[in-house]
């Protein structure tokens, strides 16, 4: 994807640019609001990552101007303000998604792809990752032709991992996906389900599909 990052913090901006480039996106980084608005108007970008608090023109203003001009470029807002009211305000201003700092980089890329896809995505009835195939209509799973029985939670988990295959998915993202809860506690409620899913889809096969990335989350890799 061709991305524009508007972020005034030099360390975060640099990290975003490098990270997004390494994730295979082309990325332009500007450090102030006015410049950001001009760049966004050029319509060269597939999505904009927009910091809310900028020195000259804040994120709300930029989104409002863009939307007022009829621009539909997807916008993902980044902010340190995390209350429900702030989220509502951001989405009302015309942002497509809202990410609270600090965030996991994996979540940023996942969300960017989601909002980029939102426009062109067409619903499909099957998904696959390497040898694993998911039939979404009948909720059936096969690996290399062998049918595997999964609980609804496990199915939902696998569907999410396949949707973001090759990318790290954080526990928080999984928790939100499975139970609409961003709870972060000591007991790892996700890990248990991941382990069971592993037991079902990786047992007896040479190559494990689901890998743990320490401190970040899980990734499903199909060679």
């Amino acid at each position, binding site marked *: 994807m061709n991305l524009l990052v508007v972020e005034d913090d030099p360390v975060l901006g640099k990290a975003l640019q490098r990270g997004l480039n390494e994730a295979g996106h082309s990325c332009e980084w500007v450090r102030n609001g006015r410049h950001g608005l001009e760049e966004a108007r050029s319509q060269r970008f597939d999505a904009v990552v927009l910091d809310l608090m900028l020195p000259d023109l804040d994120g709300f203003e930029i989104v409002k101007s863009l939307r007022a001009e009829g621009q539909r470029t997807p916008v993902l807002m980044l902010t340190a303000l995390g209350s*429900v009211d702030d989220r509502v305000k951001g989405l009302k201003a015309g942002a497509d998604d809202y990410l609270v700092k600090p965030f996991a980089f994996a979540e940023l890329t996942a969300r960017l792809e989601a909002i980029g896809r939102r426009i062109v995505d067409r619903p499909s009835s099957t998904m696959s990752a390497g040898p694993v195939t998911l039939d979404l209509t009948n909720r059936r799973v096969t690996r290399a032709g062998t049918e595997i029985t999964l609980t609804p*939670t496990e199915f939902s988990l696998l569907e999410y991992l396949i949707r973001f295959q090759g990318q790290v998915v954080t526990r928080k993202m999984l928790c939100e996906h499975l139970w609409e809860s961003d709870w972060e506690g*000591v007991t790892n409620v996700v890990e248990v389900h991941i382990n069971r899913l592993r037991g079902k889809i990786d047992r007896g096969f040479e190559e494990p599909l689901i890998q743990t990335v320490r401190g970040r989350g899980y990734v499903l890799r199909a060679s």
Partner: protein
Amino acid sequence: MYFERLKGTFRTLRFRLMIWNALAVIVTGLAILVTVRQGIEYRLQYDLDRVLSEDLDEIALNLQEERGLDFARLQRELDRKARGHAYHQWFVLFLDRAGKPVWTSTGAPPLPPISGRDSQQTHLLTTGDFRLAYRELAGTRERAPIVCVGSSIKFIQRDMATIDRMVILVGMVLLIASPLCGYILAGRATRPLASMMATTARLRPAEMHERLKVRGTGDELDQLAMTVNSLLDRLADYLKQKHDFLANAAHELRTPLSAIRSSVEVALNGDRTVAEYNELLAEVIDECGSLETLVNQLLLLAETDADRQEVSADPIPLHVVVSRAAEMFQGVAEFSGIRLRVDELPEVTVPGNRHYLRQVLSNLLDNAIKFTASRYIHHAGPGSHHGNGARGEIRLSMDFDKGANRVRLLIEDNGPGIPKEDLPHIFDRFYRVDRARVRGTATGGTGLGLSICQAIIHAHRGTIEVTSEVDHGTTFVITLPAVTADVPAAMV
């Protein structure tokens, strides 16, 4: 400037008390003086009238009873009496029917004719400076049938003038003395106020130890001082809490921060292999996770602080929230060898915030699972004193009291329980039952989970209580008001 100060004085309580007091004293004093003066005047007049009437009666008796009376002798006697009462200017007149004097005693003043009346009643009359009592005496001397006894009223007027002078004197003393005394007394009464103001003015948020003086009289000012003192106590507590909270929060943030710093510094001290870098960076990410959790919990606590009561109220089906939470933790409970049982839940809607309520259940279930698991894992195995089949169990149940319109949610476990000395503190911020359990281990948390639960439940106008017995288990009981037909969620 001077005028401003004067205006300030007029507005003081002392000045107003003085004015009210002076007005009250002066009005009452003057009313009493005037009443007494009028009473004396009336009494003197009345006494004079009685004396004159009696004298008249005496003359009438003399005339009626002694037929053969020597009239000239009577006249001499009357004349002598008149001379004896010269001070009061007492006199007697005998008048004809036209009111003209026929005989007058010594000292009788010239009077205008007194019209006679055809009655034997005593008449009283004031002419000029004289008071007269007269009466027609039937059957006596035809030429002068009317007898009139009179006296000067000048002595009454003299007495009244003396009394009036005294009244004016006392009135003037009142006029001057009552505001003066009022001012002094009001000053005495309001003096404690001045000391209260001085003490209050000295108070600073950082120096809240001083209190207003209670004089022990039990009057309103003492009550005021006690009320203000209790307010100060509460404020001081609140400030101390906030201060401790801030200090604790900073300390807690320091720990992961210093871990990050050390990891990075060590990494930068020399050349490392890629594997070592990976290991170090993974540790840094772990510590960032701790920081993130702590910051998020601090923010959550700030958002739900019970003092602010800002929870938005939507109708939330509590039974759904509870069963979803149970579902979320079912896997991890099973994995830890704990049976998580959910009783049949009544359908109850409560006004509140779904996100926050879910947070409460997650925190409580998380606690229940980690502590219960720690008891059974450590003691499991052959020779366990729990006997065969001893197993961790968590039970979730809910009952709805329709009458009180409150729902009660119970989270019971048979974990290790909470020691008695810790029980009163478990909702305190940053309080951990087992301080030895450090961050990042199985049971280590931020020490904020339960205070968040309490803040959220209080913001929902509910209560959260705990009962616990060591080696038997812990029960958390939450009560929340439910939505009713007449109290829609948005109103609560």
